[in-house]
């Protein structure tokens, strides 16, 4: 049972970590867009 739980937990942990990393990339792009907005403001 331990091995099954470990395998299941690892897969979902990996997927959620990947989604969190994607979220960080999106946040970075948002910050860069905000920076560009500031620069193009008349």
């Amino acid at each position, binding site marked *: 049972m331990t091995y099954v739980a470990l395998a299941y937990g*690892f897969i979902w942990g*990996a997927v959620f970590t990947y989604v969190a990393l994607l979220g960080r990339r999106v946040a970075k792009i948002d910050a860069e867009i905000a920076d*560009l907005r500031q620069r193009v403001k008349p």
Partner: protein
Amino acid sequence: MLSKVSKTRKPQAIFAVGFLLVLHGFFIGPLLVAHAPLEKTMGIVQKIFYFHVPCAWLLMLSTFVCAGGSLAYLFRGSERGDRLAQCSAELGVLFGLCVMVTGPLWARAAWGVYWTWDVRLTASLLLWLMLIGYGLARRYGGAGGRRLAAAMALFAAADVPLVYLSVNLWRGLHPTTKVVSSLAPGMRMPFFFALAIFSGLWGVLLTLRMRVESAQARLVELSIAVEDAEGRSS
């Protein structure tokens, strides 16, 4: 122009589908797997199969998609193909990692060792390493890094049939490809449910990752345009 970049990153529908898939995969999947009949020889550890095989399938699918995108980039100069290849390779590394962790857990219980240099295991490890190499070539390969990585993706795709057929061609410890078709009726539904959920999740992750990559590419173009405009005005 900036609003166009922002608009591309509001994938509510994709999030909704992803949420449903995670909900089903996280809660209903384990219930189905728990109620599936126990395999006589291996007992409960056989249930790793329901997660391990879908991850292996996605490793292979990611490699084929990566190779397809790389072909489009190499022979038609398609930037979209290159982005598809990059995102797909990343997912291949993710699901490959899951294969490399869940497989040895099963092996420890079934064979008594975490790892053996069986052809299937070795070919799968090589495939996973090639996808990691693809990412490293892109990142650190300099000016020609993307083309080098694309060529690597084609080699990785050539390894996929070897991975799949190795268990039939060279009989080792790993179960053969016939294991799916010979599943007991009670095991088929949870297996195909898990396969569908994982495949759907892969599709959602690929779509999201592609959107992030497209937004990033457009942002780079816009940054250059803004810098040019600032240079002209000063």
